[in-house]
């Protein structure tokens, strides 16, 4: 029995019966007197043998039922009744008093023990019933019996203490059991309530039991002896404790009555009638006690069942209450979440920060993953996420709005999109299935993030492992989060846009400046890429349109070393952009690739491709378009310049005609250096041509201005010089040119240095029209500037009569003409530059080539702001060539080249020239090798003369010559010489060796 541990509800514990002491006294005294009288009248004619004593039950029941304070009333009433009844039955006062004591002690002990054991006993409870049976029915009557028997023996002059005590015990026990039990049962609060139906049933059963018992005893129908027993059991089940108590009492009274009237069935038993009665009483007591126990047990069970049912109900109620509490708590939690969220959002400065705050701390409401995407350029871009694997972010970090996903739909419809189960997602959004597998969710909700004006700025998506996660309150929460996030996003975006606009403006301004600084398309494309890589951290490529409609890369930068693109991919992208009016956007390897056509004056010049990590940087189509527009203008301008320059350059190069050829008799070196600072070519030119007089004319000129016009004017002026030079003197030429430039305004103010040379004599006539002075450079003397023959630039109105001057060009002198680009520097004065020029010329007077090389090296050390033109010439002595050089193998090559050139000037044709060069070269090698062993010290002298009988050459050394064996290595050179030349003689003496050789030639070709 575990109910004791589960505990009774205190409300079901029997409370003392409230009754006034007077009424109590009357009831107890009356009841006791009646019971006592019955006992006397039924059982004990002699008053000493009360084998069934109902009064004992009255006293005990009264004590159990009333408050402790009223116990004296009960005891007084019972004692008074006992005393009076005893006296009335002629018992002595002492004996009566003794019986009073016994009859009061007995219930007092029973009630007190019972009270101590179980509190206020309620026979509906098995435990109380057991205590009642043990303490009140068995134990207390034993005490009473002992006292009564003692009284009987000592005061009543009786005999047989034991027998008296036993009879008392049994009789009072039965009285307590059936009468006290009945009273207590009827007053039970826990026993099955005696409603009308069981009351009727109990009465019917009791009547049946009484009839059966009467039949047994009075009619001696012993066959019916078990009927009352069976009926007790039935009553225990059907009616409960009260029914059993009533029936037990009834049966006990009936038996007692019948016995008293002599209807006994134990006469046949071989025992004393008193003993038999005790047995009967005991039997009745046991049966009734058993039935009571059964009834109590049944009641207990029923009550337990009821209790359990009630507990269940209570539990359900408690659960409901708990749920309600939890709902309340959740609501509070959500409110707190929204509040915290709002507070954090207020502090978030960027869109990313806003998104990051929004996706945080949602686990508490069962969210397994959350992410915020922004709507950008028709795409959804993840700003922040929580619980989303990197793989998902890589794959879905950015995708077009048109893709069928819950977030995209939420953005398109500007409405909350809910997916309640994984199966639903797979059905409605098949493309999101793969993502779901990784995120492992069942529920997904995507809420649009709206600006104050309702524009959808982004989408908040939440997932939960639970199906049907989005209940009413969560929906409210999600909507709340989305509202707050949307507004914060708008605020952050406005700030970001303002910052971005400022940065964009700065970038465009910077681009403008840097593009201005560069000049050519290649440079500008490069500057563009550099600036974009620097400012945006972007991979950038400029393609320019090629002639056949293709594109080629003009510049590229890859600051992140991404190198994710091959040229073919880039070219494809460029081609797409060229035919598109919009910026073409692609996502390649996690990069966003923007390509915009560079259009200017309705023409696509090329494309600009910019790529950056998706989400990184601040590139937008708008910015890319603006950059492209700015860049296109710059490139277009550069392209225009370049085209003009290319034309000018071609024209100029065509007019200059490269190195003058076929000018036998004069060594000539020319240099033309286009300006490097700008795009424009200048109008510089040089020219060499022969005059009908046999003299040779040298011209260096400079047309004012740059570009195509200057080049054209230069061409015309050059032609005019050639046409007008034969007409008169140099002064006449300039005067005629003055007239000429009147009709060619672009050529006006051109400057010119003009010189006529007689190669044979060296007679020189020259004139300078506003041009720097020519220089005469000598290998043996200081160079000098030719300041004579100076007049104003062509077409000048302030100049006087044109003049020219005369001079002579020695055989070892070089005439140098040049344009002002060589000596005009912003940072150095003209005089100083001329000094520098003369100093450089002093160092390199050996040949025309050496001179111009030295001048270029010494003077052209800066960025050329103007073209530089140089023309150097020297007369060649076509009768004699002589060289002296140290015994150094390297000298042999130089000798060969110089000799070959001299022979050309002489007019020797190629096959013969080749033979002469090889022969002289072999002889020189022999001299350097065999005479000196290439000691770099001994001198080899070569002399070649051109005469009517051909070419005579001599190679001389001062060493010791040994005639080599013909077939030896050394002899091979000699063999060759002999094979090539007509006459060969080798003369050796103590001072050295001279090899003389002669080759017959055709008469020299003289000009």
């Amino acid at each position, binding site marked *: 029995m575990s109910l004791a541990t589960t505990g009774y509800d205190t409300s079901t514990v029997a409370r003392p019966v409230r009754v006034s002491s007077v009424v109590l006294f009357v009831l107890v005294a009356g009841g006791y007197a009646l019971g006592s009288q019955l006992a006397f009248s039924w059982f004990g004619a002699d008053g000493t043998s009360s084998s069934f004593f109902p009064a004992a039950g009255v006293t005990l029941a009264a004590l159990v039922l009333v408050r402790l304070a009223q116990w004296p009333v009960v005891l007084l009433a019972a004692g008074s009744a006992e005393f009076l009844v005893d006296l009335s039955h002629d018992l002595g006062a002492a004996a009566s008093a003794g019986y009073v004591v016994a009859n009061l002690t007995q219930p007092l002990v029973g009630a007190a023990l019972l009270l101590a054991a179980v509190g206020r006993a309620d026979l509906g409870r098995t435990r109380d019933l057991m205590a009642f049976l043990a303490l009140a029915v068995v134990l207390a009557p034993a005490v009473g019996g002992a006292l009564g028997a003692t009284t009987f023996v000592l005061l009543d002059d009786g005999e047989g203490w034991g027998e008296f005590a036993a009879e008392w015990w049994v009789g009072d026990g039965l009285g307590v059991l059936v009468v006290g039990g009945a009273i207590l049962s009827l007053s039970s609060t826990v026993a099955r309530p005696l409603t009308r139906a069981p009351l009727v049933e109990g009465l019917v059963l009791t009547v049946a039991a009484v009839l059966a018992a009467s039949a047994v005893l009075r009619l001696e129908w012993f066959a019916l002896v078990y009927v009352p027993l069976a009926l007790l059991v039935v009553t225990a089940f059907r009616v409960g404790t009260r029914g059993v108590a009533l029936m037990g009492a009834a049966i006990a009274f009936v038996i007692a009555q019948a016995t008293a009237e002599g209807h006994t069935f134990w006469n046949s038993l071989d025992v004393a009638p008193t003993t038999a009665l005790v047995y009967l009483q005991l039997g009745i007591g046991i049966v009734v006690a058993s039935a009571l126990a059964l009834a109590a047990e049944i009641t207990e069970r029923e009550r337990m069942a009821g209790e359990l049912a009630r507990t269940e109900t209570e539990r359900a109620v408690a659960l409901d209450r708990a749920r309600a509490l939890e709902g309340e708590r959740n609501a509070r939690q959500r409110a707190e979440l929204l509040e915290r969220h709002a507070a954090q959002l207020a502090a978030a400065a960027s869109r990313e920060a806003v998104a990051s705050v929004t996706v945080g701390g949602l686990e508490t409401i069962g969210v397994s993953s959350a992410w915020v995407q922004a709507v950008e350029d028709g795409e959804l871009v993840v700003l922040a996420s929580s619980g989303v694997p990197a793989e998902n972010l890589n794959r879905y970090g950015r995708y077009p709005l048109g893709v069928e996903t819950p977030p995209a739909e939420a953005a398109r419809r500007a409405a909350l999109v809910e997916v309640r189960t994984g199966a639903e997602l797979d059905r409605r959004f098949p493309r999101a299935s793969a993502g779901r597998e990784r995120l492992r969710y069942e529920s997904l909700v995507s809420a649009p993030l709206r600006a104050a004006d309702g524009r959808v700025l982004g989408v908040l998506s939440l997932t939960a492992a639970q199906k049907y996660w989005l209940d009413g309150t969560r929906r409210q929460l999600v909507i709340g989060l989305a509202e707050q996030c949307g507004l914060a996003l708008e605020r952050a975006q406005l700030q970001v846009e303002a910052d971005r606009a400022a940065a964009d403006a700065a970038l465009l301004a910077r681009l403008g400046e840097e593009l201005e600084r560069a000049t050519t398309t290649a440079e500008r494309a490069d500057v563009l890429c550099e600036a974009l890589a620097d400012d945006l951290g972007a991979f950038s490529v400029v393609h320019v349109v090629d002639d056949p409609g293709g594109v080629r890369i003009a510049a590229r930068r890859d600051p992140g070393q991404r190198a994710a693109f091959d040229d073919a991919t880039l070219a494809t992208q460029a081609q797409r952009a060229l035919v598109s009016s919009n910026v073409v956007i692609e996502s390649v390897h996690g990069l966003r690739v923007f390509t915009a056509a560079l259009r200017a004056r309705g023409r696509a010049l090329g494309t600009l491709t910019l790529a950056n990590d998706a989400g990184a940087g601040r590139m937008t189509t708008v910015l890319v378009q603006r950059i492209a527009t700015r860049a296109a203008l710059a490139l277009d301008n550069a392209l225009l310049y370049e085209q003009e320059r290319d034309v000018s350059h071609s024209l100029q190069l065509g007019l200059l005609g490269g190195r003058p050829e076929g000018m036998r008799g004069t060594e000539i070196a020319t240099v033309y250096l286009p300006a490097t600072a700008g795009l424009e070519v200048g109008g510089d030119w040089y020219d060499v041509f022969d005059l009908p007089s046999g003299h040779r004319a040298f011209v260096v000129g400079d047309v004012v201005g740059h570009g195509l016009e200057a080049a054209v004017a230069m061409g015309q002026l050059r032609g005019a010089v050639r046409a007008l030079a034969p007409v008169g003197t140099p002064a006449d030429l300039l005067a005629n040119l003055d007239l000429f430039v009147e009709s060619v305004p672009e050529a006006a103010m051109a400057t010119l240095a003009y010189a006529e040379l007689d190669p044979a004599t060296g007679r020189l006539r020259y004139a300078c029209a506003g041009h720097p002075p020519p220089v005469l450079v000598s290998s043996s003397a200081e160079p000098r500037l030719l300041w004579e023959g100076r007049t104003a630039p062509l077409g000048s109105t302030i100049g006087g009569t044109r003049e020219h001057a005369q001079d002579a060009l020695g055989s070892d002198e070089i005439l140098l003409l040049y344009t002002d680009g060589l000596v005009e520097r912003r940072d150095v004065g003209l005089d100083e530059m001329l000094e520098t020029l003369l100093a450089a010329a002093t160092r390199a007077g050996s040949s025309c080539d050496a001179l111009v090389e030295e001048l270029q090296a010494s003077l052209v050390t800066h960025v050329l702001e103007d073209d530089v033109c140089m023309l150097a010439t020297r007369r060649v002595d076509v009768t004699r060539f002589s060289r002296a050089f140290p015994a150094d193998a390297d000298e*042999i090559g130089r000798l060969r080249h110089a000799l070959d050139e001299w022979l050309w000037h002489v007019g020797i044709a190629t096959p013969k020239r080749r033979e002469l060069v090889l022969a002289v070269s072999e002889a020189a*090698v022999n001299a350097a090798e065999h005479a000196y062993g290439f000691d770099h010290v001994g001198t080899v002298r070569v002399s070649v003369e051109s005469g009517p009988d051909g070419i005579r050459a001599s190679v001389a050394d001062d060493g010791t010559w040994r005639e080599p064996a013909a077939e030896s290595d050394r002899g091979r050179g000699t*063999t*060759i010489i002999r094979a*090539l030349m007509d006459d060969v003689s080798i003369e050796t003496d103590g001072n050295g060796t001279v090899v003389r050789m002669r080759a017959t030639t055709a008469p020299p070709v003289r000009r």
Partner: protein
Amino acid sequence: MTPDSLTIAHEIREGAAVLRVRGELDLTTAEQLDAAIDATEAASVVLDLSTVLFVDSAAIRVIDVAHRRLRGGGRAFYVVAPPQSRAAWTFRVAGFGDQVVVPSADDAFRRLADAGDPPV
């Protein structure tokens, strides 16, 4: 052009080392040629002088020595000098035979392919 400018391109064709020489072959550059020939490891060496601008006796000496050296080692050696080339002219002047000098690279390889007739 400086006298000492000489470039020698080295390639392997059909198992033979082909040296293509450009520039002037004279006393100063002959050693460079000698070293280049010496550096070859193939069984056959073809020295292509089609485009040289000048050849002197020093270069001829180097070629002659190289020829002897290679032949001594059982290796084949041909010098390509088209008839109109400067090299062919010099070889003629120097009396070089046409057993080693061939007019074209294809001729050289034709002779190399003829296994039964190793070059002298």
